[in-house]
């Protein structure tokens, strides 16, 4: 199963390396979004610094939506889903592979965004370990939930609007946990805790949705293309 998952992940990453959509299109959009926050908050560095964790993760969520759309589109052409299903690969492995590829792409994006917020918002990271752990677990949660809902809405006419409607409320816990953890790591935490307790929430979300996706992907693929 792990071999199959690596195969699927490599396929999605190869697609990305060839098209460079994440690095050449989504990443610049993310930078523009950061600048827009600067415009919207009147370039007040004090305010921007204080709310950096929130702005950072809201940007990540929006960019994740775009990346999930890309990941789903890889199988959007007629019959590609059936091909995947008939390939003999374990559906659980397909899910894990697609989610892993998404994690890799999102982590690259998040690293770029971290540089962006330190440049534009003058944010300084105090807890690197916390940023890394919270970022990784949060990203796994986002990628699992996204891959799952991407498959559930994929191939339909309304997927561009349906995916955010289903995805965003479901990732609310990730946003809450990741922002609180980052507040601890950036030293902007108005609350008494240091951010670590929220990492547990991120861990639970990551584990639960990876398990749910692994279980649900088989029956989901059986349904074949709606088109």
């Amino acid at each position, binding site marked *: 199963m792990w071999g199959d998952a690596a195969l699927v992940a490599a396929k999605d990453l190869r697609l990305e390396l060839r098209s460079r959509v994440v690095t050449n299109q989504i990443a610049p959009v993310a930078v523009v979004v950061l600048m827009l926050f600067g415009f919207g908050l009147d370039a007040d560095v004090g305010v921007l610094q204080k709310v950096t964790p929130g702005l950072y993760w809201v940007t990540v969520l929006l960019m994740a939506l775009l990346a999930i759309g890309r990941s789903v589109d890889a199988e959007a052409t007629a019959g590609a889903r059936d091909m995947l299903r008939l390939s003999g690969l374990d559906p659980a492995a397909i899910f894990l592979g697609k989610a892993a590829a998404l994690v890799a792409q999102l982590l690259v994006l998040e690293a770029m965004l971290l540089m962006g917020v330190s440049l534009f918002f003058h944010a300084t990271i105090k807890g690197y370990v916390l940023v890394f752990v919270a970022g990784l677990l949060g990203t796994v949660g986002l990628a699992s939930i996204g891959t799952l809902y991407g498959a559930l809405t994929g191939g339909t006419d309304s997927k561009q609007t349906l995916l955010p409607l289903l995805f965003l409320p479901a990732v609310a816990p990730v946003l809450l946990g990741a922002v609180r953890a980052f507040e601890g790591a950036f030293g902007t935490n*108005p609350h008494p805790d240091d951010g670590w307790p929220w990492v547990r929430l991120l861990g639970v979300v990551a584990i639960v949705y990876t398990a749910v996706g692994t279980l649900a992907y088989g029956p989901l693929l059986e349904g074949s293309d709606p088109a």
Partner: protein
Amino acid sequence: MNSPVPEKFAGTSASRSTQVLGAVAIVGLALVTFLGLAATGEDQDQKNYYRIMYVHVPSAWLAYTCFGICALASAMYLYKKTQWWDLVAGASAEIGVLFTGLALATGMLWGKVTWGAYWRWDARLTFTALMFVMFLGYVTMRRMPAPFEVRAKRAAITGLIGVVNVPIVHFSVNWWRTLHQQATVLRPDTDVKIDGLMLFTLLLSFAVFHVLYVWLMIHRFRLGYLEDQVESHGLERAIAERQAEARGPVPVGAGQGSGQ
């Protein structure tokens, strides 16, 4: 499967049972309104505005019932693969949207009186708003144009994922709002000293809302069945027309007027 429907109910989603249930619900709601607005006394701290609770709390409870039935029916659909369970899940979720929305709206009215603002980042209010959007997403995805099996399976999986979503969102929102805001989160509604008649009114309201739910479920189920029927028959009719076309020149007006 089709037992004859009495003449007077033909062409409607009503039946003898829905009429009886409907009458019980109307009488029950009238009684709740009377007890809630007139017969019960004032609360010591909340004066009169706790009276909103007699419609707010049952709406919220009913929303959970709707959600639970939807999740159960989703699981049953994946197990049995029958249209019946798919329709039950869809009907329950749509009624859930209605009552979650009502719980949210009446909660905000109560909040305006209690807090002085329609919205506060209160754990329960925030969670209710998120639950409303999640229900809405589920109901919206059920409308996607796709063959029945594909749509029903995806809807069922989405409904089941809700079982995971709801507790996690509930827990995280609660943790977020209570861990840091313990002092400012007002919980006056739990401080209401409930006397016998108040408790009776609340329980009666709870029961009446569930009777109403059953009534709505029967009608919504029958509507869902009609929608599926029209969809499949509409397809049959279109294929028949296409075949008739292929066979030769179609006389003016043919293929129309059937079943009109």
